[in-house]
Every structure is written in structure tokens, then in C-alpha cells.
């Protein structure tokens, strides 16, 4: 019975998050257009795009492999599975001890599936896009994982029911420790996470794998019609999910307690409030970032992660660690 409710909840979440994430795409395009003194597309343009793409025929290149057609389906399936492990203002649906590993695994898997589809498309642009995707993937995950595990480990010391699960953030958060060193460490890690988020959704500096002017959308070069629609949807879901992680770590507060709601009302209120927070984080990390920066070279982007973000994450983690060990009073 419990499983049935969880499954129904997952379907509900899938419908809601698809809607919210596509709506964000429209908002983002409109906001960036305004920053660039343009009028921009209608707010619902991503929905129109999606519906139109679904109804169009999909052109399969002659040299494409089997994975070319399967990759979009897998990518969307993994995105939906990921919804069950994502905190949306409340603990994830399938919240267990150590589910953070599943979360990171699934999030990385989406990128791998994109790469598989691109390599199988037989297009040289897609090949280069796939190379770039993998290079940036291995650079960006290290500082993110370091920060995430350090924060979860620190919170588990406060006594939580399921250590190393993403539900932890709704029992304790990093700010309530309150000491200056932890606070500084958390602020540094917040910056690392915002940079990670920008590279996860490939905007601004990190719009390298899909660089339109260089390799014509890279991994997406050969996709069209239904397959492209599925990729678009799974990308939108991934954006929302990645931002949800940042929101859950750093801004986990709910609104239901303030409003005095309980039961289903609390869940809905928290979900809506969480959506607003996700939009705010995406506004900083996506809209503003992509309006005020251009694309780096792949070597420069790798240097940003290994020479800037990784040391920053190490310093943030060390600050939290030093605070816990009470070496400095």
C-alpha cells in the first residue's frame, strides 16, 4: 500500500515538475531577453516547442547506431527515476540511508546517456560535443561531491534518523550550527555549488558541450522530432533537479510551519515554496550568469574546476572540519 502511494506520488511529481521546469525555461528566456533589451518569446514557448517537436517526424541518420534512438528514452526514464530521490521541499519519496549516492549516480548517468546517444549518431559535431561533455563531467563532479559529502557528514554528527540521505536537510541544516567557521565554509561551498549548477545545466561559461556557434549544439546535433522532444524534457527535469539539490542543501526551510498547515496541504505548500526557491537559484545561476558571460574554451573551463573550484571546496570543507574538531576555539 505504501509502495502504491509512493508510485502515485512519483507520477504526480513527474507531471508537476515537468510543468514547473518547462515553465522555468519560458521564464528564463523571457528574463534574459529583457536583460538584453529584447522582447523575447512568449512565456509558454517551451510548451509549444515540446508539443510541436513531439508531433514532428524524427530523422535518423544512416550511420546512427541503436543507442541513438534509445538514448532519449533512457535519459527521460533516468530523469523520472531521479525524481524519486530528489528533495522537493520534503524528504525524497524513496528516502533511505545513503540515497545521496543513488542521486549522484543517476544525475551523472543522464550525461553518460547523452554521450552514448551522441557517439552513436555518427556526426563529427556530436563526437566533439561528447568528448567535451565527458571532460567537463569529470571536472565538475569532484568539488561538488566533496562539498556534498562533507556537509552530510557534518550533519550526521548532529544526530539524524537516516545519515547520508537527502532527507537529512529537512532535519538539520548547515546554517543552524551557527559558528563562524562553519558559516564561512558553507558560504564558500555555496559558491562552489552555484558554479557546479551552472556547468550541470551548461550555461554561460560552461555552455561548451552544446556550443552552438562552434559545433552546432554538439550532442544534440543529429536529434530531431520526438527524440529531441524527449531530450528537451529530460534536460528541463535535470535543471530543476540539480537546482533542487542546491536549494535542499542551503535553503531547506519550508513554509508549512509558518502557515500552520499539516498533511497534504503542508506538502503542497512546501512544494510550491520549494519551486519558488528553485526559480530564485536558477535565476542567479542560469539567467544572470548566461546574460553576463560568454563561453570559455574547454581547457579554461577545466582549469576553473580543478584550479579554482576544487581548492575552494577543499578550503570550505577544511573550515567545517576544523570547526568540528574544535582545534580553534
Amino acid at each position, binding site marked *: 500500500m505504501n509502495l502504491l502511494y509512493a508510485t502515485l506520488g512519483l507520477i504526480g511529481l513527474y507531471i508537476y515538475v515537468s510543468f514547473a521546469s518547462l515553465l522555468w525555461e519560458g521564464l528564463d528566456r523571457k528574463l534574459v531577453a529583457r*536583460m*538584453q*533589451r*529584447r522582447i523575447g518569446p512568449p512565456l509558454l514557448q517551451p510548451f509549444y516547442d515540446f508539443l510541436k517537436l513531439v508531433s514532428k517526424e524524427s530523422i535518423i541518420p544512416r550511420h546512427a547506431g541503436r543507442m541513438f534512438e534509445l538514448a532519449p528514452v533512457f535519459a527521460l526514464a533516468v530523469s523520472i527515476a531521479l525524481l524519486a530521490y530528489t528533495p522537493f521541499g520534503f524528504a525524497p519519496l524513496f528516502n533511505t540511508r545513503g540515497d545521496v549516492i543513488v542521486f549522484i549516480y543517476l544525475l551523472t548517468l543522464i550525461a553518460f546517456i547523452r554521450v552514448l546517444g551522441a557517439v552513436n549518431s555518427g556526426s*563529427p*559535431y556530436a*563526437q*566533439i560535443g561528447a*568528448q*567535451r561533455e565527458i571532460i567537463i563531467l569529470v571536472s565538475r563532479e569532484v568539488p561538488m561531491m566533496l562539498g556534498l559529502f562533507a556537509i552530510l557528514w557534518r550533519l550526521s554528527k548532529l544526530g539524524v534518523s537516516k545519515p547520508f540521505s537527502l532527507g537529512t536537510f529537512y532535519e538539520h541544516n548547515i546554517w543552524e550550527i551557527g559558528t563562524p567557521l562553519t558559516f564561512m565554509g558553507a558560504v564558500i561551498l555555496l559558491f562552489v555549488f552555484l558554479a557546479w549548477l551552472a556547468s550541470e545545466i551548461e550555461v554561460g*561559461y560552461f*555552455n*561548451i558541450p552544446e*556550443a*552552438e*556557434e*562552434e*559545433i*552546432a549544439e554538439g550532442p544534440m546535433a543529429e536529434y530531431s522530432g520526438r527524440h529531441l522532444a524527449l531530450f528537451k524534457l529530460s534536460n528541463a527535469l535535470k535543471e530543476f533537479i540539480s537546482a533542487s539539490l542546491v536549494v535542499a542543501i542551503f535553503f531547506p526551510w519550508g513554509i508549512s510551519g509558518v502557515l500552520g498547515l499539516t498533511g497534504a496541504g503542508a506538502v503542497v505548500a512546501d512544494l510550491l515554496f520549494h519551486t519558488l526557491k528553485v526559480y530564485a537559484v536558477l535565476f542567479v545561476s542560469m539567467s544572470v550568469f548566461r*546574460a*553576463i*558571460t*560568454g*563561453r*570559455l*574554451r*574547454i*581547457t*579554461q573551463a577545466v582549469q576553473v574546476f580543478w584550479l579554482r573550484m576544487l581548492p575552494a571546496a577543499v578550503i570550505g570543507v577544511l573550515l567545517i572540519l576544523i570547526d568540528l574538531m574544535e582545534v580553534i576555539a
Partner: protein
Amino acid sequence: MNSRIEYWVKIPIGPIHPALEEPEKFIITLDGERIINVDVKLGYNLRGLEWIAMRRNYIQLMYLAERICGICSFSHNHTYTRAVEEMAGIEVPERAEYIRVIVGELERIHSHLLNLGVIGHAIGYDTVLHLSWLARERVMDILEAIGGNRVNYAMNTIGGVRRDIEEKHRRAILDMIAYYKNEIMPKIEEIFLYDPTVEARLRDAGVIPKRIAIEYSAQGPTARGSGVKKDVRYNERLGVYPDLGVKPVTPKEFTGVIKGDVFDRMVVRVGELWQSMELIERAFDQMPGGKIKAFAKDNLILPKLKKADGEGIGRYEAPRGEVIHYVRANPGKDIPSKWKAREPTFPNLFAVARALVGEQLADVPVAIASIDPCLSCTDRVAVVDARTGKRGILTEKDLLRASIEKTREINPEVSARPEVVGVSCPRGDLL
């Protein structure tokens, strides 16, 4: 070497590609992200202009020359009229020369603003594109007010200009210059001289050393960005430009170093925006009154040109570099026996193709955009053998070989050894 060949990938940039504004083709051999070889193929935008020109008279040719290219419409028109004027020995009134300077510099402002935006787009910095093109609207409006059109303003005529610049135009232009100087130029300088993203992407990308720039005869901002002090307005003492104190702009005056990369080319363009505005202001101060045409009536032009004999060469510094038009008279007829244009993109394209070898794939769009290529200017040569009816398009390889042979013939002591880049266009055989 052989063991690495299997990792090489050939990717085509063009003829249709998001990075290119016009059809051209670069076949790029890549080792990972590093460029091993660049192969340029031209001829996708051939419209047979010289063939069309064979049945147009001198006046009609002026409008054909204007339509060679959408951006430097004034430059081609201006250069063509200069060539015809030299051929027929027509004296242009001084006021007309000043008006030509003003319109030419307005065109340079709009072309450079366009290219700055395109560079922003090439590095994915779309805000630069949208805002600089928004700023460009102002100068387009001015050009429309003067010439009646945003693009083809048809200002020139043989022996002068067709429209005078009146007091209301002068006020509007000075307003525009004040607007650019106070509001736009500080922002442009902030982006192209100091912005970290722009510096990270443009510095050391597509480096054309001075030696390569000279050997490949790079033109305009591409040459000046590499430190070659080459500007027809200055070197050839063109028209009234010496009175206005024109000097070639090099990046040394702004950043203190000359590297010959994309950044330097953009610095030259920013410097030339300042220079153009100052030239327009000075031209207004010095502009004398009087006639604007050498001929009182336009129908006197053709009879005069019918009597002309000889040839004329017009040179002008278009926004992208030096344009040369060559006209040979056909005595007794109102159609020239030969009209030929050489535009700056042709030498620049091979200089930049050479510069790309050894750099990253990410630099390709920005390096190509940095010479502001104009392919509709470049693709003009088709050769038809009248006896056999066989057609072929002469492309870079043939033309380069022919020009190298000609140079050797004229001056056997020339020391430069340009390489032949690329192969001829496959479409030549298909036609």
C-alpha cells in the same frame, strides 16, 4: 605520427553553419580539440557580378557595385566612382569629397558595431550582440535620413555625390556622435578592453603574426591588429583624408602590446570607432561650401565617359580593409571593357586560416568572425571557355598561384614565399 592518425577527425564548418553569416566552407582536421589543418573552400556565394557588369553602362554599374555587399555598400560604390573618375580625369568638388568622408565614416561606425556584436555572438556572449546592435540602430537611422535607405544609400555619383548634407543632417549626426561618445563607447571599451570573459576568449586566439600578415597581404583591421601600419586613407593620401589627419590605428595606442590576436583586431575596431567620430567632426568643421557634383546634369556624364580612354584604379579603405576597383575604358561605348573589384576578405581569409593551425576548435568561429568576412564580395570569379563552353570557377588556389606567378614575373627578387592553402572548389566542375 601514423599511430595518431586514427584519432584525427575532419569536421566541416560550413557552407551552412551557425558560426557563419555567409556560405563558405572550412574543413578542419582535428586532433582532439587541436586544429591540425584548415582547408578553405570558396565559391558558394558566386553571383556572376562581373558577367552581369558586361552589359551595364557606367551609371548602372555604380548601383551594381553598391550591391556587391550589404555592409560596405558605400565603399564599393565610392571605390568604383574613384576608378572611373581617375580613368576619365574628372575633378571632384571639394565639398563632395568631404561628404564622401562623412558617409564613409558613418558606414565604418555601423560596420564595426556590427562586427563587435558578431564577435560577442561567436563566443556565446549574446548580450554583447543584442546591445551593440541596438546601439547600431542609431547610425542606421542617420544613414537612412541622409540617403533614404538603411543599407544602399546610393550617395555617390561619378564626379561627386548625389545629395548634400544639410544643416538638419549635421545636427542629427553631431547628436549621434555625442550619444555614442557619452553612452555607448564607455560600455564598448569596458567590454572589449576589460571584460574578463572577452579577454579570456579573445587573447591569444587566432594569432596572425606580423610576418604572416605581410606575406599574406592582410588588409584593414586584420593587418593593423598585427601591427602593420597599413591604411589606404593614410598611405595613399586619399582624397581629403590627409587634411583631416587620419592615422592608422594599431592596438599599441590602447593596450601597449601588439600580439596580432582576435583581441587586438577588436581593439583596432574600437579605436577606429573613436577615429571615425573624430573624422566626422573635423570634416564638418573644415567642410567648404560650393558644388557637390562635377556635372551640372547627370545626362552629361555618359557622353563624357564615352570619350574616355585608358584605365583607372580606385582604392579606398573599406571597414574590412582595402578595396580596389579597376576599370578599363572602351572608347566610343558607355560600357567599360573591364571592371574588376578586389575586396579585403580574400587575403584576410587565408591569413586567418593559416593562423588557426595549432589552435583550438573553440577559436574557429571567433577567429573567422574577427576578420569580418564578406563572402558575397569575395566570390566573383567564374571562367568560361568560349570555345568549348567549359566552365570553371577560379578559386583561391588558382588565383593565388596565378598571382604568385605574376608577382615573380614582375619582381623576381621578391623574397616572401606564400603557401597555397586549400584546394579548388568542387562546384567548379559541376557547373
